[in-house]
């Protein structure tokens, strides 16, 4: 019993933190130090959760009768989510888009989402996956609609809810079919059972498995914002408060990617190296989805004028690159994904923080209002340029290393389909330069519009920018620690 509890130690601490934050919010009431103390409380909770990682039972057994797995992939991502949550709370505390009196709710919802994400990446049971996915989604819906007075925020949340509920409905139906055919909800048993059925069975059975798998993909695809389940993404990212958008773009996305890896690569055992699992050509299927996702994301970002929408499409494109890695499915590819996501977290959070800072002082999210920013706020412009060029994947920035790992894994796969995928991937990177450079061009190469306000960055924001920018620079030249952590995360595959 104790082993089981220790295995989910971080999550227990997180739950406690959520409760404490809500209680503290009531107790502190309307005092001025409210936001700060709640933020500190959240940070303390996150730190405590991080500390319990050392208490995790060794060897990563499945806890609670196989519901959750303590393996390397899960541990890696749970750690990553604590980092994402830290930044999410910090951004919310520093932003004027989150009303001060509701900061307690904000922090609680965010931590609850983190809780869901942590369970999602450990889940080995279909029901657990569903439950965790919903625990990620429901607070996210609330967070997206946090600015009640802003109709865009409510609309964003509404679209999020409808889309998300429908997607999880589809996924649930797929799960029910999987359950029906395999007779169990346990992921590690479903894979072999379905493979056996597919090998011996009729066309009907194979079609049934295919249908079930495709429907299940709906849920993961929606969370990751992959084509064709991406349509909620631009509206939600644009309408939600910027700290929420920042968190959504890294947290749930990474959770969805990890869950997809567990579902496809571990559950079905699908990889380019193994024969079709469950009768489905997973590598080709995911590869095609990847190409569609990155191409649509990059092309749709080009005409955007709203920075948050532009970054939304950019994050869709990045989901495409990640899907490329999942399609390959080899340990190298999973390691590549595990290297990419922390770097992506840094870059994306940094970019959104800069957008948040500009919005705070100018009230605008359009590219036109970024013109001449280098004269009004040089440090901010340079930081944002670093994040944008890193997102493009230019050496010697960290984003290049992430892309390098992914492309190397794809090229190593060695089949004609994957060579084509690699070429599509690199060409997409070039296309992405076009719209990232639009923002850089506005900031550096154009003059400020008349009467544009100076954008003074408050010290805490500047500090966070530095905390995000420095690793982006350093990891581009020296990334061994990250690579080692990622290798351990990928160790369970294959």
């Amino acid at each position: 019993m104790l082993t089981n509890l220790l295995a989910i130690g971080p999550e227990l601490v997180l739950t406690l933190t959520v409760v404490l934050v809500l209680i503290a919010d009531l107790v502190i009431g309307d005092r001025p130090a409210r936001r700060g103390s709640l933020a500190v409380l959240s940070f303390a909770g996150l730190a405590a959760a991080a500390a319990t990682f050392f208490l995790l039972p060794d060897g990563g057994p499945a806890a609670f009768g196989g519901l959750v797995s303590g393996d390397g992939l899960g541990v890696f991502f749970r750690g990553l989510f604590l980092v994402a949550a830290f930044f999410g709370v910090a951004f919310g505390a520093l932003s004027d888009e989150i009303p001060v009196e509701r900061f307690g709710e904000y922090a609680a919802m965010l931590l609850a989402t983190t809780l869901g994400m942590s369970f999602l990446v450990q889940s080995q049971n279909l029901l657990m996956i569903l439950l965790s996915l919903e625990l990620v989604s429901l607070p996210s819906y609330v967070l997206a609609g946090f600015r009640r007075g802003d109709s865009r925020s409510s609309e964003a949340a509404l679209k999020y809810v409808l889309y998300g509920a429908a997607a999880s409905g589809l996924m649930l139906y797929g799960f029910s079919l999987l359950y029906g055919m395999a007779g169990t909800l346990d992921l590690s048993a479903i894979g072999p059972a379905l493979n056996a059925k597919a090998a011996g069975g009729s066309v009907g059975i194979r079609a049934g498995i295919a249908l079930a798998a495709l429907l299940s993909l709906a849920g993961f695809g929606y969370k990751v914002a992959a084509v064709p389940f991406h349509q909620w993404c631009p509206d939600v990212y644009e309408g939600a408060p910027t700290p929420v958008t920042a968190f959504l773009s890294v947290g749930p996305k990474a959770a969805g990617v990890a869950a997809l890896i567990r579902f496809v690569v571990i559950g079905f055992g699908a990889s380019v190296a193994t024969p079709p699992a469950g009768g489905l050509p997973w590598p080709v299927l995911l590869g095609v989805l990847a190409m569609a996702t990155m191409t649509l994301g990059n092309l749709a970002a080009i005409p955007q004028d709203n920075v948050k929408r532009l970054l939304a499409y950019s994050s869709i494109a990045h989901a495409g690159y990640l899907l490329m890695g999942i399609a390959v499915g080899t340990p190298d590819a999973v390691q590549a994904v595990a290297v990419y996501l922390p770097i992506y977290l840094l870059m994306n959070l940094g970019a959104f923080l800069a957008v948040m800072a500009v919005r705070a002082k100018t009230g605008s999210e359009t590219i036109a209002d970024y013109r001449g920013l280098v004269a009004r706020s040089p440090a901010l412009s340079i930081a944002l340029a670093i994040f944008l060029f890193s997102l493009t994947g230019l050496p010697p920035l960290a984003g290049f290393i992430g892309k390098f790992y992914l492309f190397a894994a794809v090229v190593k796969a060695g089949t004609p389909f994957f060579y084509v995928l690699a070429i599509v991937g690199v060409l997409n990177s070039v296309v992405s330069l076009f719209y990232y450079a639009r923002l850089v061009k506005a900031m550096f190469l154009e003059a400020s519009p008349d009467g544009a306000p100076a954008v003074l960055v408050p010290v805490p924001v500047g500090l966070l920018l530095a905390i995000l920018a420095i690793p982006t620079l350093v990891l581009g030249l020296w990334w061994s620690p990250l690579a080692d952590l990622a290798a351990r995360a990928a160790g369970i595959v294959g």
Partner: protein
Amino acid sequence: MDLTTNSMLLTWTVFTPAIGLTAILALLALRPLLRLSQQAVDEASRAIGLMASLAAAALGIALWADFDSGTSNLQFIHRFVWMKSWNIEFFIGVDGLSLSMVVLTGVVFLAGAIASLPWWGRLDDHHPHFSKKRVPAYWILFLLLEMGVLGTFASQDFFLFYVFWEVMLLPMYFLIGIWGAPTRKDPDGRTRGGPYAAIKFFLYTLAGSVLMLLALIAVYYASGPATLADGSQAQHTFNLVHLTRQAHDGIFVKAGAILGIPFVHIVFVAMFLGFAIKVPMFPFHTWLPDAHVDAPTPISVILAGILLKTGMYGMFRFNLQIFPTGVVWAAWAIGILGVINIVYGAFVCMAQKDLKKLIAYSSVSHMGFCLLGLAALTPQALTGSVYQMISHGIVSPMLFLLAGVVYDRAHTRDIEGFGGLAQKMPEYTALTGFAFMASLGLPGLAGFVGEVLVFLGAFAAQDGIFRVLVAISALSVIVTAGYYLWTMQRIFLGPFNHRWEHLHDMNWRERLTLYPLAVLTVIMGVWPLPVFDMIRETLNTLLASMPAGIAG
């Protein structure tokens, strides 16, 4: 060949600009503390930038002085393991070819640095000079670019090469975009200007680079075991020396086909495209005229003088060194494309009205000679190709500096709009005439040696098609002479256009850059032996790896 670290001189050369860059950054950071005025910071940045360029150039010469030209082995090696998980090493070293490029880089950047100093005449309010604009940032980017270029030439590890190669792109984007011409609408209503040229340059070269990235990864996974700098064994390698040896042992010939095309061929093409865009080879050259026209003078100098050579260098170092069979396979294509460069460039020059655009297209034309020389694969042709790279790297900075002279004064580059300037600016006329003659290949000046060697070498090539190509190229030399002489006539000769009454002759800053380059041009024209000595062994080694019977 012993690949252990044996000298720090090259490392100092490559990273001297970085030291200058850091110094300027420190200056900017300490500015509030030291209460420095903008003027003081600007002057200090210029001084630091100038000193760093001077130091890099001097170190380059020092490398040359210490260079042993009797061997093609790498010298001034500095090597240590950088990222063990990917067997990436920080491995720099030079052979004759790299050294020639390193020295050229030092010289060209020094000329560019001097040309970046403020305009000494009276400044016109309508035409603010770029040298007064955001000075510290300019020098930081300038030095970053220099480091990138030096690193590219010195790298002997494929991954390190790629990183330095990409490091060159960002500073160029900002240098052209911020300090170049402002955005304008040309007569057809299209947007043109610095930012447009900058992004075009960035997109084109990045597209080529990412293909090179895929080739890089493919080569890595196809490579065999090698020893790292710390003595440990590695399953694959990025080390160029080891890759060359493995390639000659035939490891890539046995590698699996990609998309049904033999490994060697498709990787060769991918790398070639990456470099060809930089050369620039037709039809990927269209970024060059835009970039040159809208870049500030020193940046044009650097672009034409050295950046284009990185493309050719890449072809020598990677395509030729690692995949010699690939060059043989593609020789026809490279030769023909080279000749298209030569002829097309020359003819388009005839139609140009903008002086800088004319010089840009003449660069396209001259780089065609380098391509032709590479394709011919004879000792003379290769020597000519490299010599042309170096001589063009001296002459075209001269040309762009001269264009800058008149632009700084007249604020226009329209050839037709001038006339009879010889009467007002005799010294300038003489220098321009000299530079034009050098560029068209007048015997006794630098351009001749490279061109004639390429012609002789290509003519003697095994494959008869090269004789035809040489004939066509030789005819286009006439066109080259035509457009240069015609341009001279339009700008300098004939009746004096009184619109330019106020122009005055050259000032000392311009003389300081132009005369040394002119002297170098003459020296390279009459005494090519030092350069030949430097590159001979390297080229011999490259040719020795050719399949038998190819090298003439």
